[in-house]
Each structure stands twice: as structure tokens, then as C-alpha cells.
């Protein structure tokens, strides 16, 4: 009996403490995606000049506590949807997609919590990617751009120039095959379940095609798209590429490129640091993606976002919005943000950090120019996930002998109908 009484007493005390703590300050649940080996350390360890983001933020913003979790990209979708199902969505989420959350009415409009000064700081073309029905639902946290990387030693040895058009690309591939036999794959192609939509964009955007038409309507089976995907599949069938595009991921390709087994690969701007980290020594050079003769070149940009979820039960909404705003202001302050972006080799999303980034690494300037001309996936469409998995399915069906036109027609009918 005494034991039970003691137990009840302890539980009451604990409850009292929690209640007291909640009355005094606000705790924000934050989920951050793991961009690389340094993310965890920067946010929670000692990676921010001996301290970390959470400690520094809490010291500068008394009254706001962060319950911050760094989650791997493999798990984040599962974790977020489980939390939504359990009515336990995070306050702040860093992820790539946002349209489904917005469609379910789970997100707060950015204007509710983002201070004006910070909002003006974002690149307008980036903000435009997160608009549905004239409302901005998320802000970009960083971006990366894709470019062609070539192994200069291989190209020089074979005696070909870096290809700029599809015709030149095929000639270069043929020359590499003739020279090396099967020992070097001329061209890397990744049509995997993980990122096959990127391959789709590399070819359709360099043939004046795309996921959507000029009016923003889904247009997957345009003649330009069919031509582009047939060209890409043709490269595989002619033996110009890595042998298993449906299962060889971008990381497999990057490793092959590093090991000198692959002459050309399309990769993000972080490739050089990836190669250096893994100890590969390649004489690489970067160039724009090859384009079909006469088409406008289109670079592929990838952008991730930060968004805030509603919490209707929270008693003081204004205080909560203000706390979220303070989180963002702190995150994007140049003294913090420059470290974050350069740490994993990404490109910035705000103007205020550009000068410092270019000063630290002059090669950034070229990438910023690429970023200007980048196209992004139409992630604001509420059926983007179906489009994305759909084009991957088309590519993989085509790899096993399916007819590109029929497949794209069927996909268009399924998505639009």
C-alpha cells in the first residue's frame, strides 16, 4: 500500500513538473533531413564551431526549446505520415515535397510566421515553386543543380571533345566503346526507383519537353517527351551506358566515375566533394547537359523545403508563430546559414549569404548562374508523386522492351483522367 502511495506521489510530482515547464516556455518539434555525414553533428553535436544549432538557438532565444530530430531521407516520409496519422505532426518539417500536406490543410501559410525581411531575402524563383492557389506554403532551405561531369583523361585518350548535342554524345559514346571495348562505360544513366524522375528531366528538358506544358497542365506524352525518352533508352540498347540502369543508383554511377569505369555522368554539384571524401582521384571537368539539336538547354535543379504544420490545440497561436519565425530567422542568418549550405556542398536559397559563399569558394559563382536557369520538378502539383513514380515506371518498362509512346500515352491518360 505504501509503495502504491509513493508511486502515485512520484507520478503527480512528475506531472506537476511537466505542467510547470509547459506554462513557461514553448517547445517546437523539428524534423530535419539528413543531408550527409555532417548534418547530425551540426544540429545536435559539436559541428557548429564546437557547439551546435540547438544549443546556440536556445541560448539566443530564451523561452523557446527545440525538440529537434535528424531523420534519414529513407525514413522521413514514413515517420512524417505516421506522426500525421497519430495527430502528432512536427511543428517544423524539412523535406522536399509539400503539396499533399497543403492539400490536407495541415500547413500554415508562410506569411503567418515568416518575418517580411526574411521572406524578401529568398530567391523569388524559388518561392514560386511552393505556391498553390496564390498561397506560399513552404520556404526553400537549399538547392542543388545537376551538371555533366566528364573524365577528361578518358576523353583525351579517345580523342573526343565534351559532347554538347545528342548527336555528338552518340558519336563520343561510339568512339569510347570502339577504343575501350567493354572496359569503360561511356555514359551513366540512372532510372532507378529512387531517382528515375531525374533521368526523365535530363532528357525531356533538353528537348523542349517537360512534365507540364506552358499552361502548367500535365503533358507527359508530348512528342518531344517520347523522342527524348526513346533517345535515352536507345543509348542503353546501343550498349553506351552502365548495364543495369533500373537498379544502378546515382551513387553506383558516382563510384564508377570515381573508379574510372565511367566516362561521363550527370551528377549534382556535390560530386567533387563526394569523390574527394571517398578518396577517388579523377581528372574531371564539368559542362552543360547535352541538348537535342535546336532545343533550348534546360538544367535540372532540385530544391528542398522547410514548412510549418498547424497545431490548432496550442493555446497561444501568435506566440507559436513568432517562435517558428525566430527559428527561421536564426537558421537563415548568414553566420549560421553559410556554414549549413557549404558544409554539405549545397547552393543557397537566400540572397544574404551569396556574397559570403562566393568569397569562400569562387567556383560557387558558376553554379549560381546555373541555378538561375534551372528548371524544377512541378512539386506543387497534388499528383506529383503519381507523376514521379509513373515516369520511373515508364522508363523501367521501356528498359524491358516496352514501347515508349504507348507507355507515356497510358500514363498521361491515367494521370489526367
Amino acid at each position, binding site marked *: 500500500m505504501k509503495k502504491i502511495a509513493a508511486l502515485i506521489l512520484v507520478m503527480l510530482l512528475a506531472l506537476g513538473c511537466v505542467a510547470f515547464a509547459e506554462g513557461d516556455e514553448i517547445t517546437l518539434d523539428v524534423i530535419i533531413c539528413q543531408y550527409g555525414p555532417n548534418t547530425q553533428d551540426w544540429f545536435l553535436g559539436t559541428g557548429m564551431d564546437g557547439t551546435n544549432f540547438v544549443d546556440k538557438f536556445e541560448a539566443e532565444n530564451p523561452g523557446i526549446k527545440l525538440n529537434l530530430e535528424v531523420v534519414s531521407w529513407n525514413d522521413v516520409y514514413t515517420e512524417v505520415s505516421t506522426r500525421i496519422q497519430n495527430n502528432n505532426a512536427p511543428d517544423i518539417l524539412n523535406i522536399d515535397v509539400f503539396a499533399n500536406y497543403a492539400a490536407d490543410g495541415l500547413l500554415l501559410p508562410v506569411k503567418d510566421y515568416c518575418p517580411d525581411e526574411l521572406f524578401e531575402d529568398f530567391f523569388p524563383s524559388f518561392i514560386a515553386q511552393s505556391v498553390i492557389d496564390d498561397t506560399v506554403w513552404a520556404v526553400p532551405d537549399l538547392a542543388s543543380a545537376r551538371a555533366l561531369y566528364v573524365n577528361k583523361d578518358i576523353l583525351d585518350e579517345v580523342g573526343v571533345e565534351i559532347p554538347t548535342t545528342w548527336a555528338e554524345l552518340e558519336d563520343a559514346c561510339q568512339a569510347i566503346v570502339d577504343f575501350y571495348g567493354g572496359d569503360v562505360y561511356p555514359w551513366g544513366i540512372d532510372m532507378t526507383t529512387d531517382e528515375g524522375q531525374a533521368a526523365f528531366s535530363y532528357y525531356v528538358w533538353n528537348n523542349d519537353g517537360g512534365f507540364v506544358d506552358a499552361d502548367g497542365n500535365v503533358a507527359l506524352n508530348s512528342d518531344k517527351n517520347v523522342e527524348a525518352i526513346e533517345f535515352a533508352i536507345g543509348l542503353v540498347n546501343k550498349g553506351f551506358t552502365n548495364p543495369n540502369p533500373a537498379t544502378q543508383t546515382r551513387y553506383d554511377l558516382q563510384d564508377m566515375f570515381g*573508379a574510372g569505369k565511367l566516362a561521363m555522368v550527370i551528377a549534382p554539384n556535390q560530386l567533387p566533394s563526394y569523390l574527394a571524401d571517398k578518396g577517388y582521384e579523377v581528372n574531371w571537368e564539368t559542362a552543360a547537359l547535352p541538348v537535342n539539336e535546336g532545343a533550348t538547354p534546360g538544367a535540372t535543379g532540385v530544391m528542398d523545403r522547410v514548412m510549418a504544420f498547424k497545431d490548432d490545440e496550442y493555446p497561444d497561436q501568435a506566440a507559436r508563430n513568432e517562435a517558428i519565425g525566430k527559428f527561421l530567422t536564426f537558421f537563415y542568418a548568414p553566420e549560421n546559414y553559410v556554414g549549413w549550405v557549404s558544409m554539405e556542398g549545397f547552393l543557397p536559397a537566400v540572397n544574404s549569404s551569396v556574397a559570403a559563399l562566393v568569397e569562400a569558394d569562387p567556383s560557387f559563382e558558376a553554379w549560381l548562374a546555373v541555378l538561375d536557369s534551372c528548371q524544377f520538378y512541378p512539386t506543387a502539383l497534388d499528383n506529383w508523386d503519381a507523376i514521379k513514380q509513373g515516369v520511373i515506371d515508364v522508363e523501367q518498362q521501356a528498359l524491358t522492351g516496352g514501347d515508349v509512346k504507348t507507355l507515356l500515352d497510358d500514363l498521361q491518360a491515367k494521370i489526367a483522367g
Partner: protein
Amino acid sequence: MNTIPIRHKWEPYLWLLPSLLLMSIFVVFPIGIVFKLSVSEISKSGVVRGFIGLKNFRDAFRDPAFGTVMLNTAVWVVSVVGLSTLLGFITAMALNAKFFGRKVARSIVVFPWATSLVIQASVWNYIIKGEYGNLNNILLNLGVIKSAVNWRATYQIEFAWECGVGIFVTIPFVAFTVLAGLQSIDDAYYEAATVDGAGFWKKLRHVTIPLVKPSLTVCTVLNIIYVFNSFPIIYTITKGAPANKTDTMVTLLYMRAFYDNQKGPATAMSVIGFAILCVCAGAYMMTTMRKEEA
């Protein structure tokens, strides 16, 4: 006066209570939730919207990949369970024989089982890699092949590799369950059979198999369930690519739930899988038990 008999009546239940509680919290309750979700509308981001009848099941059956994936699942379960049972049985017989280094051999056999499946699958992924895979490296160094071979040339071959890895990692489980059964067989039976003039095959058929049958039955039922629900091998090696042609039901429903955000049909698929497993395991147990009774 009669407190003792009453206590005897409820006491076993008291001791069972913790495991019953655990089972209901971690097994029965989640199964109930899955059943409920399978008849609910679930938004793409995971919000549960309420009852929609059997629409999720209709969508699941209409999934363009459903037919291929059911066939794959059947091939996967039959080949992995069938071959691992056969090979596991042979391994158990070998390990039961008395030979020098038997203990070492037994621990080596248990290794694949003691390693996590994801790691096993990743290691095999490296072994069969075309460009710098271990298999190619070894064969090249031995001079067996002149240039690297693409060990995953078609998706049928990739699926065969996946089945092979499944068999490899399942053999130890069968071998050790059967070995336990073999060790419990009294040598007197074999001596009697020898006296009656029975050879190896006759002893196997009339002594060994009937006596290890109970452990073999348990092992096969468990195996059907494990293998049907096995996710890491296929997810690690092909992720179902190309175009779901190497998916089984479990990997497909994961893809549908978390890649395509079709959470409703995915839950329906898991209920369908549950039903299939109940039928398979039930049928197998009933036939083997009936034979035992006869």
C-alpha cells in the same frame, strides 16, 4: 477450505497474463488497426478520413502490378521455403553425423542466420555487382573469365539471385530446427532398423522422416510466414525494379504506401497478405496434423 483448488484454477492465467497483455498490445491491437484502416479513406499525407467500404481492396486488385507481384510472391515463397527445407534437411543430417570439427561446422552454418538480413543482402549485392563485384574479381583473378560478366543481365536473373539469397539465409533456420528433432531420436530405432536389414534410404523414410516431422511442420509453417513477409532482400537488391517486375507483395505494398502515397490500397494489400498467410499456414497444419492422427 477450498481456496487451494480455486487458486490452481486461476493461477496459470495469472502467469500467462504478461504475455497475453504483450500479445494484445503489440500484435492483436495493430492487426485490428490495419483492418480498420483497410476500409478507411486515407489521404496521401496520411490523414484518416473515415469509412469507404471495400474501395481500397478494389484499387489493390486493380493495381497494374498486382498479377505479376502475386506470381512473384508464389515463386518466391515456394522456391525459398521448398529449397531451403530440402537443403536445410540435408545440412541437418550432415551435422548430426559424428565427425571431427562438428562443433565448428555447426557454428559456421549458423552465421548466415545470425547476421542481419539487410547486411546479408547488401553483401550479396556487392558480390554480384558487374563492375567491381567480388564474384567477378575472384573469377577474373583465377582466370576463369576474361572480362567482367554482368551477373544481373535481366530481371529474371536478378529475381533468381534474390531467391538464392533467400534460400541461403533460410537454410540455417531449417537445419537447426531439424537438427534438434534428429538429436531427440533414440539410437535404438536405428539399431532395430539395422537389425531388420534396412539401408540408409529405408531408415530415412521409415524412421528419420516420421520422427522429425513435428519439428519440420513447425519449421515450415514459420518459414512460410517469414519468407512471405520478408522485405530486406528484395528491397536491398532491386527495390522491385524494373517496374515492379521483381516485387513481392510485401515490397509492393511498402512502395505503394511510402513511395506512391497510396496508403489505402497498401493497407488493403497487407490484409490480403494476412488472409493468404492464414489460409496457407492453416491448410498446411491441418493436412500434416491429419496425417499424424491417421
